[in-house]
């Protein structure tokens, strides 16, 4: 699934012979599964909600220095709002741009709710949920392939998840506003490692109570002419 150089190696990435074809690479991420890839500067990643209202939990790291990673608060502060859509810049914890949303069929995505976990499920729904799969386990398993561990997990983006905040501060995950086939596209502002958990949550409407597959498409040559 991940055809790129592991992010935690310092190997130079300039040895590939430049080519001019730009055939996109498409990967269908099954329901409940994890996925990762390096997206190089200038390439785009399109995330397609194949069956509608499927939350895609998403973290992104600077591929050369994974201590620099997506920061929800820096992203929210930089754009002055909590919802992501076209034009939103995903900022790092050092206030540098990692990716930009260049297209979005839906209109708003969540920065606040973070990932589901077996542990938080016991608080949100009860201890009967303990044996259910959860996004944090996907992030841990997929991150380990790149040398990332628990300390590297931070508040993530939830594409296609709808989390309104009421005037009194009440917030919650409510019915989604996505639909089958809608997509969004991110442009990499530098070489980034993307970690995805195709959310397995079945206790709230973030996946319409039935997790489904999503599609990842990496398109374009990077600044050095290296294609996906």
């Amino acid at each position, binding site marked *: 699934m991940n055809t790129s150089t592991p992010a935690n190696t310092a190997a130079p990435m300039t040895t590939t012979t430049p080519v001019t074809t730009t055939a996109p690479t498409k990967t269908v991420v099954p329901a409940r599964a994890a996925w990762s890839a390096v997206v190089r500067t200038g390439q785009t990643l399109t995330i397609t909600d194949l069956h509608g209202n499927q939350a895609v939990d998403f973290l992104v790291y600077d591929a050369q220095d994974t201590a620099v990673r997506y920061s929800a*608060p820096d992203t*929210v502060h930089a754009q002055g709002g909590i919802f992501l859509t076209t034009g939103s810049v995903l900022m790092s914890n050092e206030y540098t741009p990692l990716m930009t949303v260049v297209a979005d069929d839906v209109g708003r995505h969540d920065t606040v709710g973070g990932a589901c976990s077996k542990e938080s499920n016991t608080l949100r729904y009860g201890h009967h949920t303990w044996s259910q799969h959860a996004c944090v386990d996907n992030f841990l398993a997929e991150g380990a392939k790149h040398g990332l561990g628990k300390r590297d997990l931070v508040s993530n983006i939830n594409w296609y998840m709808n989390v309104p905040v009421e005037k009194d501060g009440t917030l919650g995950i409510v019915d989604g506003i996505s639909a089958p086939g809608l997509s969004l596209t991110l442009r990499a502002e530098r070489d980034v490692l993307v970690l995805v958990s195709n959310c397995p949550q079945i206790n709230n409407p973030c996946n319409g109570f039935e997790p489904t597959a999503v599609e990842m498409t990496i398109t374009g040559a990077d600044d050095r002419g290296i294609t996906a």
Partner: protein
Amino acid sequence: MATETTYGARDHARAQEGARAEAMPVVPARDWPEPPCEADRLVWAETVAGGNYTHRVLARGTELRLTDLRGDACAHVLLYVADRPWERLNVADTVKVQWNAYLGAGQLLLSDQGRVLASVVADSSGRHDALCGTSTLARNTGRYGDGTPQGPSPAGRELFKLAAAKNGLEPRDLPPSLSFFQGVEVREDGALDFTGSAGPGAHVTLRAEQDVTVLIANVPHPSDPRPEYVSTPLEVLAWRAEATRPGDPLWDATPEGRRAFLNTAEFLAARGLA
């Protein structure tokens, strides 16, 4: 006083004993001039300068009161389980599990393991933020011309890196933080309104529900619209008290909170800690 010789330099250094600064820890803490409890219960008494930081390991049951002395403090806070810091404050779980984006009395500060690190037991401010985090070197350099710890406008993240390092932690151990005393509200369309300070003297009290490492950076809120770096002293007092117990109103205030307290109690009992 002559400092040409080792003896003179020693006398010069020792003559400083008893000097006072506005921002300093008072050691021992029981010597704090106006203790909010029996003086012997105080374990930490410090005034943190604007643009500075502090940190401490607090025993379960300790209460930590932060006071915005002049109205322009902003206490950026991170919490870790003291001896296993990979379990730490999770801001997303804190707001999601409790169905509320805003911090205030009765809120629990949750770890990523479904347990309570600390509870907010008193709050006279109501102006806090769980969304915007703290400031960064790049942002403060662009905003104020400098963001280094030694400069005139230190960034919160740079100070957190120092506080973390003194507890054996690295930049990758710094998740999104909370901030107290400068408020942010969310409009229906998701846009943020900075509501600022509740004024001088506002205070908030946290109760440690496990042994925790607390990191505090006192720097302007990143959404503070003023062009100049305004950051005034933060008072930090901590004293021995009791952790929340079954039967306390806070224990049963919400079903989510009750399960978080139960998870915490089970964890501590299995370790023989409570």
